[in-house]
């Protein structure tokens, strides 16, 4: 019997002593040894050589396939990881001192205008048109107040047309 069997024999005796009453250990050990001798005396048949050859061939093919598959999966994962790392590095380096000044379209307009809410004050043409509109509005209010004027309707229409023309011109730029 080989070393392994000897080791398990020692292991078994020790176990019996741990789990049984000391007086029962020798008989139990004898029963087990006798049973194992019966098994040793009646060896099971060995597998056919054809079966063994077939299994070896199957394993060789499967091993090759499995290894190739693992290489492909691992290689693919490696490539993906490399791509992610490269993109991350580009992102990190893009923020570094080597990069030129960042382009901001807001810088094309003066900051004072960009932040101002008073559009009329920021553009000279707008100032001009706005003052004309205010003037016409004042004239219209004056005409509305003087209802005795005989040519009120004609004057009002003229003023409205002027106002419309100014607004059209304003939006055309």
């Amino acid at each position, binding site marked *: 019997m080989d070393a392994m069997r000897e080791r*398990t024999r020692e*292991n078994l005796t020790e176990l019996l002593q741990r789990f049984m009453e000391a007086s029962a250990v020798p008989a139990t050990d004898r029963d087990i040894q006798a049973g194992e001798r019966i098994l040793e005396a009646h060896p099971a048949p060995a597998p056919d050589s054809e079966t063994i050859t077939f299994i070896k061939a199957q394993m060789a093919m499967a091993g090759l396939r499995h*290894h190739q598959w693992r290489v492909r999966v691992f290689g693919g994962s490696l490539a993906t990881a490399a791509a992610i790392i490269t993109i991350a590095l580009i992102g990190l380096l893009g923020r570094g001192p080597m990069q030129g000044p960042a382009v901001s379209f807001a810088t094309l307009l003066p900051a004072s205008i960009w932040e101002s809410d008073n559009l009329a004050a920021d553009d000279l043409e707008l100032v001009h048109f706005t003052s004309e509109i205010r003037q016409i509005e004042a004239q219209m209010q004056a005409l509305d107040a003087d209802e005795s004027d005989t040519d009120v309707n004609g004057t009002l229409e003229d003023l409205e047309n002027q106002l419309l023309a100014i607004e059209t011109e304003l939006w055309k730029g």
Partner: protein
Amino acid sequence: MDKGADLARIIDGCRSGDADSFAQVVDMYAGRCYGYFYRLTGDRDLSDELLSELFMKLVEKIGSYKGGAFESWLFKIASNIFHDHLRGKQRRRKLLDAHRAEVELEPDLNESRISDGSGEKLDRLQAQLHRLDADTRELIMLRFYSEMSFKEIAELRSEPIGTALSKLHRGLKKLRELMEG
């Protein structure tokens, strides 16, 4: 180079998909694994199939082997394969009529299915083994063919060491009585 180092080298070869390493594992363990399957099934063709399935599983799972006793790892797979076979057999059995299922379990029929013609002694042991309950039979075979320690066997079977020890004692004692009777 010692046996352990040899085995470690062979297993490394298996992990790399090396055909020679696989062949060496088959040469080292096919006999014991085949004996385990044969003693549990009493059927050579079925044992061939289960053995083939075992070694194909080995190819598939060798990457998950993390060291320790290789025999324990291998026989754990063998035990799982045998149990899967039993579960499949139970499913098939449900489709058959009760009489046919009874006949399949008869030891006499198992004897007649042994086709290796290796003699009366062999047939007699196989027949007597089938008089033991399936769980005890498997425990005896696992202990005998895997040569695992009782601690490893108890872990594999998820039962206390004392229980496994007691079952083995009763089983082997009964087998001796049957063989001598």
